[in-house]
């Protein structure tokens, strides 16, 4: 029996079971059947146009674009030949709304409703691609190759994001058509729970939330923890790292991938109940996962007697309430239990004693999304990707001072250089790369001199940072590293639960010192004090938040000590960011007198007649930077000032 036949049988068995059991399922299926486009008796559509319906694109007007497209198609009587659908996130998040046309492999960005009409005329009716909308800067600009050849996409290997841009997130049919739930069928009908765990162990999958703990081993510990009362599996979707949105996109675009992973995991571990903990700042993700769970129940992939195998498992969704610390395992569990999210000491670990004292396995969204492909394609395949100790792929949120910002999935071991230049298209406006921040507030800044290090758990840790959940923030010469350190520490101070002394008191003191430094009140000895304090906080904190809080500070001191010294001794901010240390001045030679800054200034600090160089009154200036933002002639310069 070939793989294909086995798979087909499994899926047939799956859907057959659901059809027999639940009458309403029939009704739903017919509706989505039509939506999925396989019209009985009619010729299939020649083209599929998918409009990205992720949060960013929706907020940028994707609904209007879709409506305009459909209207234009109707007017052109092309509706039957072209299928328009809600797409999942294409990860070109800063240039939405994004529209993909398949099978042409063309991606359009920044599409307006008017553009949609042009696209219909030119491309869908006339076969001519609209070059103007097809914008991806970087190496592949002149010729417009198909998507797969464009630098941004070429280097990527999609495992967790395998369905990116290809399916309607609300359609379980589409998911199933792309090998969805086949892994689950295999896991339940062909593998024993022990075999499931050994497969995941062999794959080398490590926690994608940042901890990097071997997933299979964690499952095994949980499985081996005795509990007559049942066990839990939890999906940690409390993605709180500022600058990270991988989990949001995964939940919004492919919720079933997470569900499938959780059911497989539950089977391996022996859990009968699961939770997805979503932060409340992600309303769309919450909505989509809820809907997906409902649909999965209807189809028999969740609930009593999954796929008719006698295995029962169901999932609840719990929403966060605005606490970053609830991404920490023990705090997350406390929150699910209806308490304040204050971490507790470990041991005992959640795998032994978790929710309500029972063995609980907590994994990140991306980790769960990787499980189904591993079961379907085999641990050997997964282990062939990546490095010796960091197998598989990782989803990163590439943001900041980068030409192509968005979500990327790359094999472990790829260098930062490749990510930034080949995929990301480099730093915009010809600025110089300064650092890459990985791992969010728990991570560190890696200087530009080190971007040839491969992305891998151990390598990043050796450099003083961590893999983290996948935030990759690119910083250029206009970023002040002391300000970055202060920013992260201030964030952690707000989010600290306050239970243990080193974090509650220590992080606050770090923020105080860094604020002083950025305001020009740095003192000799501050660097040593920050280092000593940071080491103590690292070693003595109760939970991961505190233990990793000093990382941004310690890495910036390690790699950018000269910037600290400039602030402290010279009272100067080399990157010209720290307001107390900069002065906004009009450069008379460049000022054309266009008056844009005069209008933009909220306090009327700039004056001057039209067509004459303007004058900036320092006594009124509040350093808000509005003038700098609007000046087209580089005529506002932020200079460093020297204090005697």
């Amino acid at each position, binding site marked *: 029996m070939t793989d294909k036949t086995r798979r087909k049988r499994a899926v047939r068995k799956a859907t057959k079971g659901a059809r027999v059991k639940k009458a309403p399922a029939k009704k739903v299926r017919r509706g989505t059947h039509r939506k999925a486009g396989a019209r009985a008796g009619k010729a299939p559509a020649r083209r599929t146009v998918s409009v990205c319906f992720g949060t960013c694109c929706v907020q940028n007007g994707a609904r209007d674009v879709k409506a305009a497209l459909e209207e234009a198609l109707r007017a052109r009587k092309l509706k039957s030949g072209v299928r328009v659908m809600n797409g999942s996130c294409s990860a070109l998040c800063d240039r939405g709304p994004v529209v993909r046309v398949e099978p042409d492999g063309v991606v359009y960005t920044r599409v307006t409703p008017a553009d949609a009409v042009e696209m219909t005329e030119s491309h869908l009716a006339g076969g001519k691609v609209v070059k103007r909308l097809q914008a991806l800067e970087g190496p592949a600009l002149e010729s417009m190759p198909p998507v797969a050849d464009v630098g941004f996409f070429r280097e990527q290997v999609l495992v967790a994001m395998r369905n990116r841009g290809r399916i309607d997130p609300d359609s379980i049919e589409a998911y199933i058509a792309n090998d969805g739930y086949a892994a689950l069928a295999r896991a339940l009908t062909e593998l024993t729970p022990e075999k499931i765990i050994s497969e995941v162990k062999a794959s080398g999958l490590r926690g994608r939330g940042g901890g990097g703990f071997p997933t299979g081993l964690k499952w095994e510990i949980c499985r081996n923890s005795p509990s007559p009362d049942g066990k839990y599996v939890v999906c940690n979707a409390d993605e709180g790292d500022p600058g990270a949105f991988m989990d949001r996109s995964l939940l919004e675009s492919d919720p079933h991938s997470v569900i499938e992973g959780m059911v497989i995991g539950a089977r391996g571990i022996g859990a009968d109940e699961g939770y997805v903990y979503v932060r409340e700042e992600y309303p769309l993700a919450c909505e989509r996962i809820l809907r997906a769970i409902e649909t999965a129940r209807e189809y028999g992939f969740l609930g009593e007697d999954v796929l008719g195998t006698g295995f029962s498992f169901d999932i609840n969704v719990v929403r966060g309430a605005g606490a970053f610390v609830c991404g920490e395992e023990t705090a997350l569990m406390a929150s699910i239990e209806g308490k304040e999210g204050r971490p507790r*000491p470990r041991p005992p670990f959640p795998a032994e*004693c978790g929710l309500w004292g029972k063995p609980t396995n907590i994994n990140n969204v991306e980790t769960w999304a990787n499980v189904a492909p591993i079961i379907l394609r085999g641990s050997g395949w997964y282990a062939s990707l990546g490095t010796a100790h960091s197998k598989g792929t990782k989803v990163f949120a590439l943001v900041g001072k980068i030409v192509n910002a968005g979500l990327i999935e790359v094999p472990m071991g790829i260098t930062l250089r490749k990510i930034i230049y080949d995929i990301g298209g480099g730093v915009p406006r010809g600025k110089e790369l300064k650092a890459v921040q990985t791992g969010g507030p728990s991570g560190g800044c890696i200087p530009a001199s080190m971007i040839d290090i491969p992305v891998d758990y151990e390598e990043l840790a050796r450099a003083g940072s961590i893999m983290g959940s996948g935030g990759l923030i690119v910083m250029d010469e206009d970023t002040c590293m002391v300000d970055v350190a202060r920013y992260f520490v201030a964030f952690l101070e707000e989010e600290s639960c306050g239970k243990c002394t080193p974090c509650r008191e220590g992080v606050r003191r770090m923020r105080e010192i860094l604020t002083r430094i950025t305001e020009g009140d740095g003192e000799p000895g501050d660097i040593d004090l920050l280092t000593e304090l940071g080491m103590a906080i690292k070693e003595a904190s109760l939970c991961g938040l505190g233990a990793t809080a000093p990382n941004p500070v310690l890495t910036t001191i390690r790699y950018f000590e000269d910037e600290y010294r400039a602030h402290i001794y010279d009272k100067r901010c080399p990157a010209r960011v720290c307001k107390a240390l900069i002065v906004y001045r009009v450069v008379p030679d460049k000022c054309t007198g266009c008056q844009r800054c005069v209008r933009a200034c909220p306090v009327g600090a700039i004056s001057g007649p039209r067509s004459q160089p303007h004058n900036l009154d320092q006594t009124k200036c509040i350093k808000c930077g509005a003038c700098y933002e609007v000046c087209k002639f580089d005529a506002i310069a932020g200079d460093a000032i020297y204090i005697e």
Partner: protein
Amino acid sequence: MKPENKPAKRRGEKTENRPVKEPKSGPDRKIVKKSEMVRLTINGKKVNALKGDTVLEAAREAGIEIPTLCHHEALIPTGSCRLCVVEVTAGGRTRTMASCVTPVADGMRVATDTPRLKRIRRMVVILLEARCPNIAIIKKLARDFGVRKNPFPKDDEDCFLCGMCVRACLEIVGVGAIGIANRGPESEVVPPFSVESGVCIGCGTCAAICPARTFTLEKVFRRRSMHTAGGVESVFRCKVCESHYTGT
């Protein structure tokens, strides 16, 4: 249309009839059967302990002193002050852990007084002293650790959030009149809404267990005078739960 959050059948917590009896989610040594002996090493000295004991308990039994601040025999430990940190080597890894919440394990090697630990404890004390420079027990700790000049600007708090009063009120007395509100540096021990508690029974357990109580009454309680027909009466207002009571 937005889907409703229809919960799956949720088992795992029983209906709570009394405020104190909540299912615990942390370590509870009272439930574990103390039937197994555990052999570990503390500072090179071989120590026998019972399974379920914490490293702190085992150390104290063996006569080894470890400083603590938020620990009390009658309360479930939380490991929040971090003064009792020790270095634990088990399974090939060495970690710094709070001894009051770390259960003993066979073959564990513990060091309670290395230079590194001294450094860490000293920083904890420095941070506490910067927060509460006028509390006697903190002043004593500062003296013990040789902290003379504090590198941080000083506050003048009268509470360092050990949380023992809250735990005592809930676990020992069973009333739960006070709690920790807010989070992070803004945490404070207050009765709800910072108004007079409706359920405080005035037992004074919180004041008795508070490690910061070693200063005069005038500082702990705010005293108000009340002019009545019979003369002047002193009315005390409990600093913790804000209730009034009379007395000397």
